């Protein structure tokens, strides 16, 4: 198979990982799945970064006993990916700790319910009804239209 050389397979893997990650974020409603979706997406992006200057057969960019290899891999993406992975880990841990707290507070990790309860909390704090109720903002309804009609149909 000529079309599917290693390079192509790797690229498909990278894009595929991103695809799966994005699908996870978009399709699922459970926060854990969404968080894992992000992790997958990041993995895909990392792989893409690694592939950016990938050369088949290149050796690791390390000099062992003055034996300089003929073809060394690009060290920059490797360093970048190292950084990106660590960042990803940090954020993942943070996401998990937040998820624990959210689950403790709202008793659910379903995105829709969380959203609803969050909205409820904000509205309660501000002392207003939930926006989904059909009550209009105070002053919009009070634009002096009503009085216009009363005035002019009255006389």
């Amino acid at each position, binding site marked *: 198979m000529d079309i599917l050389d290693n390079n192509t397979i790797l690229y498909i893997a990278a894009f595929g990982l991103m695809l799966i990650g994005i699908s996870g974020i978009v399709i699922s409603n459970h926060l854990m799945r*969404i968080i894992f979706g992000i992790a997958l997406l990041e993995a895909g992006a990392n792989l893409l970064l690694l592939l950016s200057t990938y050369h088949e057969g290149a050796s690791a960019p390390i000099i062992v006993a003055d034996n300089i290899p003929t073809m060394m891999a690009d060290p920059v993406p490797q360093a970048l990916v190292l950084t990106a992975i660590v960042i990803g880990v940090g954020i993942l841990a943070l996401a998990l700790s937040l998820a624990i707290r959210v689950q403790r507070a709202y008793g659910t990790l379903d995105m829709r319910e969380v959203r609803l309860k*969050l909205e409820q909390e904000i509205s309660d704090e501000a002392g*207003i009804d939930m926006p989904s109720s059909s009550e209009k903002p105070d002053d919009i309804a009070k634009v002096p239209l009503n009085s216009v009609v009363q005035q002019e149909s009255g006389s």
Partner: protein
Amino acid sequence: MSLLVLMIVLPLLTAFLLSSIDRLSTFAARVMGPLVLLATAAIGLSVWPQLGDAPLAVQWGGFQAPLGITLYADQFGLLFALAMTIGTLLLWPRSTENQLRSSSLALLLAGTGSGLALSGDLFNIYVFYELMTVVSYGLIASRGTSGSFASTLRYLVISGFGAALALAGIALVYQATGTLNLAQLAQLAPEKLNNLQGFAAFVLMLVGFGVKAELFPVNMWVPEVYATASSRVSALLAGVVSKLALLIIMRLLILVFHQPEALTVLLVLGILGVVSGELAAWRARDLNRMLAFSSIGQLGVMFIALSIPGNAGIFAALAVMVHHLFLKPSMFLLAERWGGSIKGLAGAAKTSPLGAALFVLLSLSLIGVPPLPGFWAKLLVIMPLLALDQPLYYFAAFVILAAASLEANYLFRVVMKLYEKEPAATPHNAHATLDLATAVFLGAGLVAAVFMLIPLADRLDGIAAQASDVSTYIQTVAPQPLQSGGVQ
């Protein structure tokens, strides 16, 4: 060697050591943060004049560009680095529970923001950006309510999504050019990035960095976060941090991505942002979310300004950004005590007349009433839009003007409430002195700008010209041309 790196490094160092210092002396830990920021602001200000003549490039670790990471300081970047530092100083978080951690986070934010504004390396920008994101999670969550945790998590999901896309974009850029140095990218871009790959990379990065800049499809976190975070944090995020993300996008546009489609994407998303934000704000019934939605709208205006090709667009965007930099934090500070429903604000002007008067001033400037600075900023955006003579740009101008009328309507609805004669059932508190003083200070800046309009406009024009000068950028950084064949 330049002391400029201290603007970034010193706050980080202090943040690392703050908890240790706290163990030695609580008082020292409390004053340490502001003092350090004062010092870094002083460093920044001392460098400011010399950057007017020539920008400055510093290589971290002394390695030659493009191998090492470049720090590129022009007045444009330094302006926002200073804004970040001074802004954090003014809006120093005051949380009773997590004071120590909040202080560390604020320090980190200041350092990171400065670094982001001054960075000259694509991946370095990404890392700074991520750090800033994490720090803002912390600041939002430091309020400690379950709402703030939930909104942080929602924010984190969107942000993580965006960041991964931005990383993919960076991968595409590195794949095409083999470098991450912005100066070198500027050299190589016309040849290697002026294609679909470049465009895809731009869109990915736009989405990634747009999360913080409240770009339209990735700004769904804004209303929730600003409603649940403490007002000072909202002020920082809406006022300063969003501008830094915008600055990154501006830098990328100026240096790397020159496709006309890129501008169109910005324009369309900007228009959508203005429309959705201002319309949503019109119906908001609590002040915090009203301000959040309106901030989406104003960021949309900045994106529209950015989409104007050439120097005029940079100048316009800069003017709107600087205006917003003063205005939005001050509004959020006023919302600190007025955060509840707008209906409940009736008669609030009686308890805090200065705050109410300031709110009127800010509203007037926001909707662009001459001779306040907001008017001139708006003028600078719309004039080049109309001069371009293209239907979409005409439409953008129309949208901005129509949005301003909506803005006038909903902001003055609040003003009317404030001055209503019958007070609300629940009395509201007067503003905390420090909040009010800060807000007044920022508002005074706006008024002062009216009197210094002409020199100010000249200065901003100069900054914009310097920022959009690609050849100076390349010359200052002077990256080594890349050689082929890595084997020695």
